[in-house]
């Protein structure tokens, strides 16, 4: 072999090597814990088999299209499990070498699974849990929150109420712990934005079927009487964490007032008719792929995996610590069909994001509302601000 040919050969090999070094095969998983619950009040709220997973399918397509220009591939495994089998299911995911896991679970399981993931250095994205304590005392260094907290959701509703000058609230909350956690978020939001809770009532969950034939007849008799004799109020705020009563409030409350919170005007991250800021394209892609409308949790899973995709694209890493570092860095920003970039709060790993206020058919408004200001980002007027968070895992 002549010297010239040799040089060429070496150059070609180097070229190949450098290309190989850039190529990344990104493997992630979505783990969904399914619980035994009573059926939802509305059939529209039934959980589909591909709940959350549908967002992963779209994220894989989107990320793969971008990756095709850069030599990156994306593959997401989806697993549905039960609370009892969740640890084993995650164990299997982790032992297959996957270190990026999106989880949909309640607080107890989410914390247990996050700590289990930490043992292998894996990074977890919370795509469904709104428990504010997870962004506070119970935060974890390897847990990033895509789902907004109860505090963010309540603040989003509260800002809209204040913009409307509906500052006298009738709070109706579920008597169970799930309802009280949300009610506390609204009580906190009232103090934060200067609203007054003029009436505070609880609705006890006495069990029984959520649906019965012609059940509306009873509802129509019960709800007005349950809500009469309340002090003068501008709006009814519903706090229902288990979907057992809030859906019955609109139109049935004694005083003709709008309902917001867990029914009526609800805070969501996405819904199937949101079209502003280019979201129509997102809806079209999602529906073509999954054959149904998007739910908030589908979008949250999509967004979690887009965070991964962005880290891979910009920072050339799919390692959990690399993705985490990039997501929490000043360089990170992501377009999410919300009219402004979304970023992470460095003090508790919560995604900063606008919240859509949805009436069941259209986006009625988007919080933060005009006029609510913050020295860092107006998005930090929603949820736990840095001085309010007791999270130390991110220090």
């Amino acid at each position, binding site marked *: 072999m002549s010297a010239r040919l040799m040089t060429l050969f070496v150059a070609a090999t180097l070229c190949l090597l450098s290309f190989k070094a850039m190529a990344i095969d990104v493997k992630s998983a979505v783990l969904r814990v399914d619980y035994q619950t009573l059926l939802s009040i509305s059939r529209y709220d039934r959980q589909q088999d591909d709940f959350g997973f549908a967002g992963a399918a779209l994220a894989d397509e*989107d990320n793969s*299209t*971008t990756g095709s*220009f*850069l030599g990156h591939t994306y593959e997401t495994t989806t697993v549905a499990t039960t609370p009892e089998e969740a640890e084993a299911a995650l164990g299997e995911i982790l032992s297959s070498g996957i270190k990026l896991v999106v989880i949909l679970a309640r607080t107890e399981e989410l914390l247990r699974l996050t700590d289990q993931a930490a043992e292998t250095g894996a990074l977890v994205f919370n795509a469904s849990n709104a428990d504010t304590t997870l962004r506070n005392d119970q935060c974890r260094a390897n847990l990033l929150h895509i789902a907004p907290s109860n505090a963010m959701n309540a603040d989003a509703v509260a800002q809209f109420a204040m913009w409307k000058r509906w500052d006298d609230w009738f709070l109706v909350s579920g008597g169970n712990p799930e309802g009280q956690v949300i009610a506390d978020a609204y009580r906190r939001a009232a103090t934060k934005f200067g609203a007054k809770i003029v009436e505070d009532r609880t609705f006890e969950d006495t069990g029984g079927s959520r649906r019965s034939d012609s059940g509306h007849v009873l509802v129509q008799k019960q709800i007005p009487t349950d809500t009469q004799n309340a002090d003068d109020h501008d709006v009814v705020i519903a706090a229902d964490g288990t979907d057992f009563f809030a859906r019955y409030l609109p139109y049935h409350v004694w005083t003709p007032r709008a309902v917001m919170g867990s029914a009526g005007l609800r805070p969501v991250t996405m819904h199937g008719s949101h079209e502003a800021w*280019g979201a129509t*394209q997102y809806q*079209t*892609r999602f529906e*073509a792929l999954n054959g149904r409308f998007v739910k908030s949790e589908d979008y949250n899973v999509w967004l979690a995996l887009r965070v991964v995709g962005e880290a891979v*694209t*910009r920072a050339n890493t799919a390692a959990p610590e690399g993705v985490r570092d990039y997501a929490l860095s000043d360089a990170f*920003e*992501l*377009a999410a069909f919300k*009219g*402004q*970039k979304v970023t992470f709060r460095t003090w508790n790993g919560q995604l900063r994001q606008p919240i859509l206020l949805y009436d069941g058919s259209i986006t009625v408004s988007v919080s933060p509302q005009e006029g609510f200001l913050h020295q860092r*980002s*107006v998005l930090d007027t929603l949820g736990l601000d840095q001085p309010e968070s007791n999270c130390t895992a991110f220090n």
Partner: protein
Amino acid sequence: MRTFATCGAVVALAAGSLLAAPAMAGKAFVSNEKGNTITVLDTETWEVLEEFPGGNRPRGITVSPDGKLLYVCASDDNIVRVFDTETYEEVFTLPSGPDPELFVLHPSGNPLYIANEDDNLVTVTDTETRTILAEVPVGVEPEGMGISADAKFVVNTSETTNMAHFISTEDYEIKHNVLVDQRPRYAQYTADGSRLFVTSEIGGTVTAMDIAEDGSPEVIGKISFEVAGVEPEWLQPVGAKVTSDGKRLFVALGPANRVAVIDAQSLEVLDYILVGQRVWQLSFTPDEKYLLTTNGNSNDITIIDVASEKAIKSVQVGQQPWGVAVIE
């Protein structure tokens, strides 16, 4: 059959009139995204002459080199509608692929390069045979379309992939991909083809690239914006135009309701011109005396005097004006 004959005549007429430009007052055509109409304005008096149906959700808008034909992306009709700029009659339609939003016309008038947001494609459509010549797979949500001075490259920006894709007009292969900031909306070459600007709506920046002789890009800098009293989130660069001498770049800043004036050489932001609400796309009058802006939320256009870099007038048009094209 009748339609076809009429169209043939129009094309023949268009080709013939390249030699002699008619002496008459100019016209601006504004696509009204929500009103489904095109507003026509006189570019001397700035009076509205006419408002005619533009198909469903008209957005991208441009004119043939001879000024005879008006091309409109009727996004919700999944088609490009072509109108006579004199009679405002629809003369023919062009296949565009689904949801066409923006396009760029070859300087010769053929073909038309169209971004299909839903299908991650750029569609190349022959404006004479009215057939699709090629479909080029690009990144997620293709939007901005620019064409180099020598017409050798079409640049497409993909809003979710966040890249500028440099597509060769010879073989329709992507030759270069450049990562830019979040949600790139518009690509604008200088007239001499030596520089390219790509706006990033959510990133809040404009990426400037120097373009080599062979068309390959090199990022030379990023322009960012700052306006006292305006939240940084609302400084969202969308439409952009550069003067033909390559000296001034104007960038529409969306919900900031301002057009930024930038030294296109040094990339320094010189000024901000207050215009209408949600300023979206821009177009010069052919003599470059005026720059027109479409203001989607105040339903008007603002006329900027290019020499003095001042807004001189706003005119009400249809519902949610999106794009604007001007003929002599």
